[in-house]
C-alpha cells in the first residue's frame, strides 16, 4: 500500500458562527486522484485552503510525506510541492500565458526576464502531459478550459507534485470536462497526486480512485470509487438514506402564466441562449437543470428584463413583455429570487425592513405622495419577519448582520409578499443550511398550491427533482430536453446535462 503524501490529523478551522472543518482526519496517497465531496458549506474549500496555506488551522496537524508541517502561505505550499487550482481562476487577463506562468517564479538573465527559457519549459510541460496551449497568447483570449490548463501549468511549472482543484468542472462544458479528465489521468500516471472537489457524483465516480465525504464540517468517511455508487455517496453526503423529497399534493396545472418563445441571446459571436421556448402554468413548478454556465443565468435575466434578448418573445399571462425594463416586468406580477443574493438580491448596508420592500416600495398602500409610509412598512415588516421566521433582533438592523439563510429568507419574504403570479427563483437554496433549505422549499410548494407559476433554476439535481412538476435541461444555451419530473431520474437528467440528446437508456449504457 502506497504511503500517504498528505495526512491531516484532527484538522479544525472555525469561522464566525460556524466550524467549517471539525477534526478532519484525511489521508491522501501518492499518485492517486482523490475526490472530496459534500454539500454546500460542508467545508471542502476550507480544507483545501488550509492545505495550500491560504488559511491556518485552529487545531490539528498536517503531515506531509510523513513529516509534521506548518504550511505558512501559498508560496510556502508551492515550495512544499503543493499547488492549488482555484475555482475562480487566479489569472492576469492581460498577461500572456508565459507571463502568468512565471509570475512569482521568474528567472532572469542580466536582470531581464528570461521569457525564452520560460517558454521552452512551458512547451515541455505541455508536451509531456499532452496539453494544448499557446504560451504567447494573452489569457483573456483563451477559452475557460484553456485558462484552467494555464492554472495547471502554473502549478506544474513550480514543480508541484500535489495538485488541488476546487470544483474544476463547474465552469467547463462537457467536452472540456473530458479533456480535463484525460489530462488529470496522465498527470496521475506520471506520479502526481490530485485532490479534486466536486458536487457532481458521476464525475467523481468516473475520475477518482478514492472519495472522501464531508458533511457539516466533519469527515463522514473515505471510500474507493469502485466500491460505491451514486446512491451510496449521496447517502453519505446528506446523512439520510433517502434523497431529500418533499411532499406535494397532486394538482392539475392551470393556465400558462409564463411563456417564452424562441428566445436567443447573442454576445459577440457567441450564443448564450439559443432558441429557448418553454411555458410554466399556474400551480406548476418548472425546474431548470443544467451545469452552471449553460445559459440558465442568462435565461432568467432575459425574462426579468435585465438583459434584452436578441430574438424571441416573453409573454406573461398572454401579454408581451419582451424588452420591458425590470420594473415593468415586475409590474406584471413577477417575482424574482436571484442566484447571487449579495450581488443582486440585497442592499447589504440597508436595514432589514428596507430590504423587505425593495422593488415594492412604490405600492400605493405604502406611499403618501412622494413620501413612504414608514409606520405601515415597519408594521408589515414585523409581520413578514414573524411569518417567515427571520431570526433578527429588530428590523432596523442592517441586513448584512443576518446569517446567509436569514438573508435568503428576507429575499423570499419580499418576493412572495408582493402577491405575484409568477415566481422565478434561481438557486433558491444555495449556501443555506438544511433547516433553511427545507423552509424555502416548503414556501415554494405553498406558492404552487396557491396557483402560482414557479420557475426554479438549480444546480442541485436532487432539488430540481424534488420540487418540480416538469423539468427542462439546459445545455450550451439550449433547452435540450423537457420531461415530467415523475418520469425521469437524476441519472437521466445528468446525461442530458452533459449534452447528450439521445435517449436516456442509451446514454446510461454509454457511461456505465
Amino acid at each position, binding site marked *: 500500500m502506497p504511503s500517504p503524501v498528505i495526512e491531516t490529523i484532527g484538522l479544525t478551522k*472555525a469561522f464566525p458562527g460556524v466550524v467549517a472543518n471539525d477534526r478532519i482526519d484525511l489521508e491522501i496517497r501518492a499518485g492517486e486522484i482523490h475526490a472530496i465531496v459534500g454539500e454546500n458549506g460542508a467545508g471542502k474549500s476550507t480544507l483545501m485552503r488550509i492545505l495550500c496555506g491560504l488559511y491556518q488551522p485552529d487545531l490539528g496537524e498536517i503531515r506531509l510525506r510523513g513529516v509534521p508541517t506548518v504550511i505558512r502561505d501559498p508560496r510556502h505550499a508551492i515550495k512544499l510541492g503543493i499547488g492549488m487550482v482555484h475555482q475562480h481562476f487566479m489569472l492576469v487577463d492581460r498577461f500572456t500565458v508565459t507571463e502568468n506562468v512565471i509570475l512569482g517564479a521568474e528567472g532572469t538573465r542580466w536582470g531581464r526576464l528570461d521569457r525564452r527559457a520560460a517558454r521552452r519549459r512551458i512547451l515541455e510541460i505541455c508536451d509531456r502531459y499532452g496539453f494544448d496551449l499557446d504560451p504567447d497568447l494573452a489569457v483573456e483570449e483563451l477559452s475557460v478550459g484553456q485558462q484552467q490548463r494555464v492554472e495547471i501549468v502554473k502549478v506544474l511549472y513550480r514543480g508541484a507534485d500535489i495538485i488541488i482543484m476546487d470544483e474544476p468542472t463547474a465552469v467547463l462544458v462537457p467536452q472540456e470536462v473530458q479533456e480535463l479528465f484525460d489530462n488529470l489521468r496522465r498527470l496521475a500516471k506520471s506520479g502526481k497526486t490530485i485532490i479534486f472537489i466536486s458536487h457532481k457524483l458521476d464525475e467523481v465516480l468516473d475520475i477518482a480512485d478514492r472519495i472522501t465525504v464531508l458533511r457539516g464540517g466533519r469527515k463522514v468517511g473515505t471510500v474507493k470509487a469502485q466500491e460505491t455508487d451514486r446512491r451510496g455517496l449521496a447517502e453519505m453526503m446528506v446523512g439520510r438514506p433517502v434523497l431529500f423529497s418533499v411532499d406535494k399534493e397532486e394538482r392539475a396545472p392551470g393556465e400558462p402564466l409564463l411563456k417564452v418563445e424562441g428566445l436567443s441571446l447573442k454576445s459577440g459571436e457567441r450564443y448564450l441562449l439559443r432558441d429557448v421556448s418553454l411555458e410554466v402554468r399556474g400551480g406548476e413548478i418548472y425546474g431548470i437543470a443544467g451545469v452552471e454556465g449553460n445559459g440558465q443565468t442568462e435565461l432568467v435575466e432575459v425574462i*426579468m428584463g435585465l438583459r434584452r434578448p436578441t430574438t424571441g418573445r416573453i409573454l406573461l399571462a398572454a401579454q408581451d413583455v419582451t424588452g420591458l425594463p425590470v420594473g415593468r416586468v*415586475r409590474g406584471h406580477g413577477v417575482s424574482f429570487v436571484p442566484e447571487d443574493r449579495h*450581488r443582486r438580491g440585497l*442592499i447589504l448596508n*440597508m436595514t432589514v425592513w428596507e430590504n423587505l420592500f*425593495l422593488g415594492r*416600495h*412604490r405600492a400605493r398602500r405604502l406611499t403618501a405622495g*412622494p413620501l413612504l409610509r414608514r409606520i405601515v412598512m415597519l408594521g408589515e415588516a414585523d409581520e413578514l419577519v414573524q411569518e417567515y421566521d427571520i431570526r433578527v433582533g429588530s428590523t432596523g438592523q442592517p441586513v448584512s448582520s443576518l446569517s446567509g439563510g436569514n438573508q435568503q429568507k428576507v429575499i423570499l419574504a419580499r418576493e412572495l409578499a408582493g402577491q405575484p403570479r409568477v415566481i422565478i427563483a434561481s438557486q433558491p437554496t444555495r449556501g443555506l443550511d438544511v433547516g433553511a433549505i427545507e423552509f424555502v422549499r416548503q414556501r415554494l410548494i405553498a406558492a404552487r398550491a396557491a396557483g402560482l407559476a414557479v420557475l426554479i433554476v438549480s444546480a442541485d439535481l436532487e432539488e430540481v427533482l424534488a420540487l418540480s412538476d416538469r423539468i427542462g435541461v439546459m445545455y450550451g444555451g439550449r433547452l435540450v430536453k423537457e420531461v415530467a419530473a415523475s418520469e425521469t431520474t437524476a441519472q437521466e437528467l445528468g446525461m442530458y446535462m452533459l449534452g447528450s440528446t439521445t435517449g436516456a437508456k442509451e446514454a446510461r449504457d454509454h457511461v456505465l
Partner: protein
Amino acid sequence: MSYRRRLLELAAPLLALLFALLVGGIFLLAIGKDPLQVYLTMFRFNLSRLDSIGSILYKSTPLIFSGLAVAVGFRVGLFNIGVEGQYFIGALLASIVGFSLHGLPVWIHLPLVVLAGMLGGMLWAWLPIVLKLRRGAHEVITTIMMNHIAYALVLFFITSVFLDTEQEMVKGLGSPQVRMPKLLETARMPTMHGFLETLGIELPRHVYLNWFFPLGILLAVALFVMLWRAAYGYELRAVGGNPAAAETAGINTQRTMLSAFLLSGALAGLVGLSDLLGYFGYLDIDFPKGYGFTGIAVALLARNSMLGVILTAILFGFLRRGAEGVQAFEGVPMDTIVILEGVIILSIVVAVQIVNWYVRRQEKLMKRRQVTMERAGGD
C-alpha cells in the same frame, strides 16, 4: 456589540479631530507658538464676539451647499469631485442673469438668478454623468477635467466677453478691476440683519450673513427627509448601496443616477451664490476657489449625513474664522489652518478604517469564542 460599535463610530471623527489638532500643534510648536494658547485664542475670538459668530455662519454657507452636493453624490454611489467646476459655471450663469435682466422686480429676478446658478451646476454635471452612464467613463476623472475647463471658461468670459469696461479711472491711473458688470440690486441676496433685529440680535453691519445660510439649512433638512422618508430617496440609497440589486428589484438605476447627479450639480450651483449675491455683487477673476474640494472633506467628516453636513460646514467656518483671529492676535500664519484641514480629511478616513478593523476583529473574536464554547458544550 452594536451599541459599542455605534459609539466607536461616533468616536472616529472626534478622534480624527483630536489627532489633527495634535498635528497642527506640532506645526505651531515648530514656529515657537504655544498650541494651547493659540487654540484658546481661537476659541475666545470665535465665541466671544457676535461678528465672529456671524462670520462663521457666513463662511460655512458655501460649504453647506458643497458638502450637500458631494454627500448626495456619495449616497448614490458617485463621487462628485466636480462641485468645484459646477459652482463656477453656476456663478457665471447667475452673474449673467444678474446683471443683464433689467426691470424685473426682486421677487422675480432673485429667484431667476438662483435658478440660473443651479442650472449652471447641473449643466456642468450633465456631461460627466452621461459619459459615465453611456460610456463608462469614470466620473472622478471627467469631473476633475471639467473643473479645469470651468476655470478657464469662466476666466475667458470675464476677461474677453463680459469684461466691465465702464469702470472709472482718474486720468488713466489706478486700475479697474477685471470683473463682469455688477449685479443689479434686484439680483442681490439680502442680509439677515433686519430679521435678526426683530429677534433682538444686533448683528454688526459688516457681517454678510445672508439668507443663503437658512436656505442651506432648509435644503439639508429637505434632503434629509427626501433621503430617509421619500420613495425617491430610498431608491437613491438603494442604487448607491448596490446598483445591481436595485436594478434587479426594478428600480431604474440609470435614471436614478442621472437625476441624483444632476441634483448634486444643482446643489453645487448654489455654492458660489452666497459670495456672489450676498457679498461681492460681481464675478471677478479672484472669485473664491476651492469650496468644491473642501466640500468633500465636509461630506466625509459628516459621513454623508445631510444634517451632519451643517455641523461640519460650521466646523470649517469656525476654523477659517479662527485662522483670521490667530493670525491677527497670535501671529500664526493662515497656512496652519490649511494644513489642519488636510490633516483632518486624512485622519478622518484613517480613523474610520481603524475603528472598522477594531470592531470587525472584536466581532470575529467574540463569534469564534462563541463557537468554541458551543462545541465544548455540545460534545
